[in-house]
C-alpha cells in the first residue's frame, strides 16, 4: 500500500525531478505543476500528470497558493511536497494545503511562522539553551533603542532583517559612525523585500564557518539528527559547495553540535525534515543562525554518507509513520561533496546568465550523482533561480570525494549558457579547500585564483576552427543551398536545440 494516492510536487527544476524520482520508487503517482515557461520541462515530463498554473512570473504561478491548491484538488492528489524555495517555508501555504483536506509534506504553518521570524526564533532558542550570538532580539525597534543595544553588543556587528533571508538587507557595521546609515538602508531593503522592517542585531564573527544539522522529528517529542553538513563556501550569502561531514569537527564537537540541533527541533515542536544552521567561530564555539523548515538544496550529501533517502523519510513522516531511525543511522560513512552548478557568469561579476542550453553532457561514474532539471534545449529564464544542477560525489575519504569531484566537473559540459563550472573546478582544486581551511569569505579571499581565464588555449582554437569548417561544409551540402558554406553559419546549430 503506497504512502499516498498521489503527490503534487509544488516546485520546478532539479528538486521537482528529484522528488518525483523517490515517489516513483515508492509507487506513488506524481503531479507536476508548470508555468508557461516550463510547459515541456524535465520535471513535467518525468511526472505522471502535469497541471498548468499560470504565466512565467513566479508570483503568478509557483508562488500562487490558490493556484497550486486548486491544481492539487483538480488532480485528486492527497499530498503536496513543496520542495525548497518558492512556498516551501510559507506557513499560509502549509495551512491552505491542510485546510483543503490534503497532507502538507513538512511542518505545520505555525512552525514555519515561528522560525521565519528571527527575533522569535532567537528568543525560543536561547530559552531552550541552544547557544545564540550576543545580540538584541527585542520588540523596541526605535532607532535610539537599537543604537543603545548596538553599543552593548559591541562592534563589529550585523544588522539582520527579522523576516526574510538570502542575505537581503543584511549589513555589517564596523564602528558606531556607520550604524545609523546601515540601519536605515537595511530597513529600506527589508521593507521592500519582506514588507517588515524589524531587525535583529548580532555580534559579527570574522571568518566563520557555516555548519548545519539535519534533523527529523515526529512532533511528539521524538527528534533525531542525521549528522551535520558544512556549507562555508558561499558567494553573496548563497551556498556554492557543501559537504558532509564537516572537516572542522572532531567527534566531541560533532556530538555537541548535533545535540544542539536536536534540542532546537524539540524546542520549536518540529515535525518532518528540517535543518538547524549554526555559525562556527574560529575559536570553536557555535551559535544558532536559523532553522530551515524544509528539505535543503544540499540534502544529497547527507544521503550520500548515511545511505538514507530524505524525501522518503519526509513522505513517511507526513503519512504518519513513526520515526524509525536509530542513532547508528546518523553515523557518516565516508565523505560527500556537492557543487552547485549555477547559470552565472564568473567573468561578469557572477551575474545570472539566461539563455538556451545548446549542448549538455553530465558526468557519471563510481560515487557520482547528478541531480539535474536540465536538458539540451532547456531555456534558462530570468524568472527563476539560476541553479541548474547539483553534482555530488562520495568517497571513502574527503580526499577521494575531492578527486572524484575534480573528475566529475572536468567531464561536465554545458554550452549555450555561461555557468560557474570553471569556478567550481578552481574551488575544489584549491590547496586551501583540500586542507579544509574554509570560511564564508573563502571565495572573496581567493577570488583572483578562482576567476577562470576567458580565452581557450591555441590548440582549442585551432581544433574549433577545423571542426567549424567541417560542420559548415556538411551543412552547406545538406541544405543544398548556399555555394559558400560560410554564409550558412547563421542557422547552423548542432546538439539538437529544441
Amino acid at each position, binding site marked *: 500500500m503506497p504512502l499516498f494516492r498521489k503527490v503534487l510536487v509544488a516546485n520546478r527544476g532539479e528538486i521537482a525531478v528529484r522528488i518525483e524520482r523517490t515517489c516513483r520508487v515508492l509507487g506513488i503517482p506524481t503531479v507536476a505543476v508548470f508555468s508557461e515557461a516550463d510547459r515541456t520541462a524535465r520535471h513535467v515530463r518525468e511526472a505522471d500528470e502535469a497541471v498548468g498554473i499560470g504565466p512565467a512570473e513566479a508570483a503568478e504561478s509557483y508562488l500562487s497558493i490558490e493556484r497550486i491548491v486548486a491544481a492539487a484538488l483538480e488532480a485528486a492528489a492527497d499530498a503536496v511536497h513543496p520542495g525548497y524555495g518558492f512556498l516551501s517555508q510559507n506557513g499560509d501555504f502549509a495551512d491552505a494545503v491542510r485546510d483543503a483536506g490534503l497532507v502538507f509534506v513538512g511542518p505545520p504553518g505555525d512552525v514555519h511562522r515561528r522560525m521565519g521570524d528571527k527575533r522569535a526564533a532567537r528568543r525560543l532558542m536561547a530559552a531552550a539553551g541552544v547557544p545564540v550570538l550576543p545580540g538584541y532580539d527585542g520588540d523596541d525597534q526605535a532607532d535610539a533603542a537599537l543604537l543603545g543595544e548596538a553599543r552593548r553588543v559591541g562592534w563589529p556587528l550585523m544588522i539582520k532583517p527579522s523576516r526574510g533571508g538570502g542575505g537581503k538587507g543584511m549589513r555589517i557595521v564596523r564602528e558606531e559612525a556607520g550604524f545609523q546609515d546601515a540601519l536605515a538602508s537595511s530597513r529600506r531593503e527589508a521593507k521592500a523585500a519582506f514588507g517588515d522592517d524589524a531587525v535583529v542585531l548580532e555580534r559579527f564573527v570574522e571568518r566563520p564557518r557555516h555548519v548545519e544539522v539535519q534533523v527529523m522529528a515526529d512532533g511528539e517529542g521524538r527528534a533525531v539528527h542525521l549528522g551535520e553538513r558544512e556549507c562555508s563556501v558561499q558567494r553573496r550569502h548563497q551556498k556554492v559547495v557543501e559537504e558532509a561531514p564537516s572537516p572542522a569537527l572532531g567527534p566531541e564537537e560533532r556530538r555537541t553540535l548535533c545535540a544542539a540541533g536536536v534540542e532546537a527541533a524539540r524546542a520549536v515542536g518540529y515535525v518532518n525534515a528540517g535543518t538547524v544552521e549554526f555559525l562556527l567561530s574560529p575559536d570553536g564555539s557555535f551559535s544558532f543562525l536559523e532553522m530551515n523548515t524544509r528539505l535543503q538544496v544540499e540534502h544529497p550529501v547527507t544521503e550520500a554518507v548515511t545511505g538514507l533517502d530524505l524525501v522518503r523519510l519526509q513522505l513517511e513522516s507526513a503519512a504518519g509513520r513513526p520515526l524509525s531511525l536509530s542513532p547508528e543511522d546518523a553515523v557518516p560513512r565516508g565523505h560527500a561533496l556537492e557543487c552547485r552548478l549555477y547559470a552565472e557568469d564568473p567573468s561578469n561579476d557572477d551575474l545570472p546568465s539566461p539563455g*538556451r542550453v*545548446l*549542448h549538455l*553532457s553530465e558526468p557519471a561514474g563510481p560515487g557520482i550523482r547528478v541531480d539535474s532539471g536540465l536538458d539540451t534545449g532547456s531555456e534558462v529564464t530570468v524568472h527563476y533561480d539560476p541553479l541548474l544542477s547539483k553534482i555530488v560525489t562520495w568517497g571513502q575519504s574527503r580526499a577521494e570525494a575531492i578527486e572524484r569531484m575534480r573528475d566529475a*566537473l*572536468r*567531464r*561536465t*559540459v*554545458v*554550452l*549555450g549558457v*555561461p*555557468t560557474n*563550472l*570553471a569556478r567550481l*573546478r578552481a574551488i575544489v582544486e584549491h590547496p586551501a579547500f583540500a586542507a579544509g581551511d574554509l570560511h564564508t569569505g573563502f571565495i572573496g579571499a581567493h577570488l583572483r585564483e578562482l576567476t*577562470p581565464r*576567458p*580565452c*581557450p*588555449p*591555441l*590548440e*582549442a*582554437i*585551432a*581544433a*574549433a*576552427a*577545423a*571542426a*567549424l*569548417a*567541417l*560542420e*559548415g*561544409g*556538411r551543412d*552547406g*551540402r545538406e541544405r*543544398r*543551398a548556399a*555555394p*559558400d*558554406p*560560410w*554564409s550558412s*553559419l*547563421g542557422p*547552423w*546549430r*548542432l*546538439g*539538437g536545440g529544441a
Partner: protein
Amino acid sequence: MRLRCGEETFDVQVRETKRGLEAQVAGRAIRFALERARPGVFVVRDGARSTTLHLVADGTVLHLSWDGVAYALLVEREGARTAHRPDPDALETPMPGRVAAVKVAPGQPVAKGEELLVVEAMKMENALRAPRDGVVRAVHVAAGDRVVPGRALVEIE
C-alpha cells in the same frame, strides 16, 4: 577564419597535410587530427593523445568546451573575407580536402546552384555549386587532387 575572444583576435588557417591537419594561429603551427564522434562532439588527436572538443554554434557565437572548460568565441565572417576576398567568378573550397569528383568540363553551360565539384574532407563530402549562371571557362583540378581554400578550382564566365 577569424575568431574573437573578448579583445583578442585569432586568425586561423587550417590545411590538410599527409598526416592530418595543420593550423596556423598566432604564429604557431599546430598539428592534429579531427574526427566527429556525434553532433557537437569531436575527438582531437595529437599522436595518441586525444582530447574531446564539444562545439556548438549559435549564430556567430561559437560555444566550445575544451578540457572541461567552456568558452565562447565570436566568428567574424567579414574578417575571413578581408583576409581573402573570393572572386565571384571563381569556385573555391571552403575547407582543405581532396577532390572526389569533377562534374563539369570547359565550355559547358551551368546554372546557378548546379553541382560542379565534390570535395571530400575528413570523410565528409561537400558539394561545390555554381555561384551564378554562366559557362565554364576553366577547370584547374582533377579527381584525387588535394585542394585548399584561397585557390580557384573552377572559373565561370
